[in-house]
């Protein structure tokens, strides 16, 4: 069956994130004075096939470990869900 993993990759806590600091400054400049911190990151939405949920989980873990995040500087968290929407091909057919 098809699965969708939404993988969030962020710099490890404590590593300076100049992009987040700049965005925080922008928000404060707009009047959101209470903003104390922004951490930037990226969202990767991975669609893939796996027979059952444990297999899907271990695949996502392996993807994160081998490529999607560099453990020297990043952490990855993810959410997994079954993709029960019709595929693009099926929808267009």
């Amino acid at each position, binding site marked *: 069956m098809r699965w969708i993993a939404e993988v969030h990759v962020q*710099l490890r806590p404590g*590593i300076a994130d*100049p*992009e987040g600091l*700049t965005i925080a400054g922008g928000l404060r400049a707009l009047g959101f004075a209470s903003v104390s911190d922004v951490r930037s990151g990226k969202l990767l939405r991975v669609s893939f096939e796996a027979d059952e949920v444990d297999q899907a989980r271990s695949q996502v873990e392996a993807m994160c470990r081998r*490529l999607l995040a*560099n453990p*020297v*500087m990043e952490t990855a968290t993810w959410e997994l869900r079954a993709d029960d929407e019709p595929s693009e091909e099926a929808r267009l057919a």
Partner: protein
Amino acid sequence: MSPPRIAVVVFPGTWSDRDFLDVAPLVGWDARPVWHAERELGGVDAVVLPGGFAHGDYLRTGAIARFSPIMPAIESFAASGGAVLGSCNGFQVLCEAGMLPGALLRNDHLEFRCDWQWLRVEAPASCPAWLGQIADGQPIRLPISHGEGRYYADEATLSQLEATQRVVLRYAEADGRVTSDANPNGSLHGIAGITNGRGNVLGLMPHPERAAEAEVGGSDGRLILRSLTTWLAEQPVAAERRL
């Protein structure tokens, strides 16, 4: 003696390969490009990973390039003591591949920085293949050209790099003083270049190949490139490694 054979690795998006190939004759190299999809280096004396934006630097700098078919050959070449240089994007690839510790992050000011930069060479004996012809503490001037050059490693790794004299290039003033003002990207400890424990792999953010001719504004890069030529001539194993 025939000139040493140098592989200049080309990934999709590499941009400094032609500069390395262009200046190779000036420093006594017989250099040839090696496409990333090849699986063998083809009997060379040293390997250069040039700057650029391999695979668009998508995901992270060097993240896709490190899985190129040619990388296992480069890793085993380095493991056998072969000299490997990674400049700019090449340094980022070496870090992603785990051949050097740490990582290169987005510059602290978020800008791409293209400029001439003074550097202090430290402990050149830690990396004789690439720095053997440079004096300890000598200031050299090379171009930098990067948006992601902020060297980062955790405290334990930094301490180990410092204790073992593997930080061999630091951003500095013209007189060689390392100051925060001279640091162009927020690198921890002002680190511009490091070597591995064995001293045969050098990663640096600056571009020695862009400073090998006085006509382009400086020739200090030749000190690094010629160090290799001299070092190779002194290595009895270099000729054997080709076989």
